[in-house]
């Protein structure tokens, strides 16, 4: 019955093998400069490093939580680098690699997971919407945004495109399916990028779908394609093409990036309760960074000095991440009231002033809240 477990699907698009060999594909020529390829390598290494540091910071009590992207760097960096500056992305909560590509600082991400904010950056500035935690909700936001793009007349060869990220689990939500349908019916310029990392917390893919996820798209009347999600070339090339097709008025595409969540679901999770380490071992051989390393090294597109410089940059970044995290200022109590509404709201104004008085009543009492 379930046919969704094989990585070896005939229609999986792979341009770079786990061994670092290029694969020719008629529809997706690799037209990247060596510079760009080294850039991708740098992206992959640095986002993994941010991630590693964040996990460690959580362990040290500096973050409330962290959702690790370990293993999904290629899917995120490839698709993130396929975006143009004017495009808009609607992420989920694990898309730190896309955030990186969109120029969102690690500091903002840390702020969210430290609990100093529920947002942390200006979506318009980065073409990167806020993280969305309620599974599936952002797929509709992206679709609506794309319908706005259409209404702005911004569809065309140099038009704008929209992308939204979600997981395999998210494909079960009504909202995600409604988004597929709204996008199809309206021919909206949106790319649905599903990172199928094989797990939704403890639930394996077969609890979410009876057939490969990319096939869902055809049922709604638009193309679906499965890529090797650990192959940064495939992710970049296929996403770029899908975005271009959206941009030019061909409507939506669903990309299923077949990848693997190498870490726990979040720092709260204990995956040993539900999955086999053998599975992990198997996927370790498909690591997205090693294969690009192999390719760069084998082809001579990068030398030891290059790798050393990335390593050094990574160390520096790690240092910076730790410093930045610890230096994040706590919000102030009265900030609770500040941004619920754009315009004044009498209930809140009253609560705010009562609370201010209450806080003031402790002043000079020696302790904060001091019975």
């Amino acid at each position: 019955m379930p046919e969704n477990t094989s990585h070896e699907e005939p229609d999986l698009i792979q341009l770079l093998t786990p061994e670092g060999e290029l694969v020719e594909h008629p529809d997706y020529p690799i037209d990247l400069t060596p510079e760009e390829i080294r850039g991708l390598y740098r992206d992959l290494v640095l986002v993994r490093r941010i991630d590693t540091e964040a996990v460690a910071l959580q362990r040290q009590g500096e973050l409330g939580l962290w959702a690790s992207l370990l293993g999904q760097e290629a899917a995120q960096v490839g698709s993130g680098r396929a975006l143009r500056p004017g495009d808009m992305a609607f992420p989920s909560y694990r898309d730190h690699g896309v955030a990186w590509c969109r120029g969102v600082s690690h500091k903002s991400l840390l702020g969210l997971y430290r609990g100093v904010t529920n947002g942390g950056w200006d979506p318009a500035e980065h073409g990167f919407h806020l993280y969305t935690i309620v599974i599936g909700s952002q797929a509709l936001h992206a679709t609506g945004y794309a319908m706005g793009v259409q209404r702005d007349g911004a569809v065309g060869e140099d038009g704008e495109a929209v992308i939204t990220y979600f997981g395999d689990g998210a494909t079960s939500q009504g909202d995600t399916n409604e988004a597929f349908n709204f996008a199809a019916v309206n021919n909206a310029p949106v790319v649905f990028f599903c990172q199928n990392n094989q797990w939704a917390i403890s639930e394996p893919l077969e609890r979410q779908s009876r057939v490969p996820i990319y096939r869902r798209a055809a049922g709604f009347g638009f193309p679906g394609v499965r890529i090797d999600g650990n192959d940064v070339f495939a992710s970049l090339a296929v996403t770029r093409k899908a975005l271009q097709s959206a941009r030019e008025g061909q409507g939506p595409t669903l990309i299923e990036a077949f990848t693997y969540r190498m870490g726990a679901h979040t720092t709260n999770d204990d995956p040993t309760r539900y999955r086999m380490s053998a599975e992990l071992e198997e996927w370790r051989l498909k690591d997205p960074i090693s294969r690009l390393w192999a390719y760069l090294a084998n082809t001579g597109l990068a030398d030891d000095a290059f790798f050393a410089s990335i390593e050094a940059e990574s160390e520096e970044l790690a240092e910076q991440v730790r410093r930045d995290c610890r230096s994040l200022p706590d919000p102030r109590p009265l900030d609770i009231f500040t941004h619920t509404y754009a315009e004044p709201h009498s209930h809140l104004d009253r609560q705010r002033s009562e609370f201010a008085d209450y806080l003031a009543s402790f002043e000079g009492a020696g302790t904060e809240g001091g019975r």
Partner: protein
Amino acid sequence: MSTKLTIGKAINAGLRRSMEADPKVLIMGEDVGKLGGVFRVTDGLYKDFGADRVIDTPLAESGIIGTAIGMALRGYRPVCEIQFDGFFFPAANQTFTQLAKMRARSGGTLKMPVVLRIPYGGGIGAVEHHSESPEAYFAHTPGLRVVTVANAVDAYWMIQQAITSDDPVIFFEPKRRYYEKADVDTEPPLASAYRMDGARVARPGADITLLAYGPMVKTAIQAAEADTEHDIEVVDLRSLSPVDYATLNASVRRTGRLVITHEAPLSSGLGAEIAARVTQDCFYHLEAPVIRVAGFDTPYPPSRLEEHYLPDLDRVLDGVDRSFAF
């Protein structure tokens, strides 16, 4: 220039004026296009503004609100119609976890100028899910503004104010009053109108305050007129979140008594919050506890029973009597 307009037509005129004033204003919903909505509130807008601005959506309320949020993020001001009160619930997630919270989440960076128009309330002899009053769910949700109208004048102005608000506004339309008429002067600039979050003394009185909103305002006024023993002041709340306690408390301090009426089920209805708050604010002025006359704590009954479920003139006056009995 003053025109006689029904509440439905007044909302239609307000929508039209908003769309003329701002090309970013869009209409979305089921059957809002050619049909003009099942109550014809968007009548003629599709013809005059086209399919790009008056969008017949797929039959999916979550999809409507979810894509409206995306449109708002793109700079549009969508006005979404939920066909009937009872069909809001598929959109609860997008409304409560996304629409209401987006601004706070963004630390004030984003705004959410989205209006949800919801025809609500009973009294039209409809089948299940077409007669409900879900306003308390919204009033309990921080980040939303909630208003309702009781006459065509308010309908005309308040829909426009809801649309110009940068906050999400839930706009409840009293469906059994859609055909009530009033003279509406459609000329003055919007800026000159009162604010939609101010309550209104609909009928002054000295003995007791009777608070109503939406469809119950007419009933409340009729009850006040019918009562020859007491001089009843009727307050039309208009805004359900925030509530204009300045106006309300002033009335209660004068009269010393308050009866609240709404169609929604009693328990945890909006009347509860107002009763609790007014009691706290006016404790020494109240000569009786706040009395609530509301729908019962049951699902809205089949229509052959609705006359018993809905608070009518007699039940409202019974509430007045109960207040004076204290």
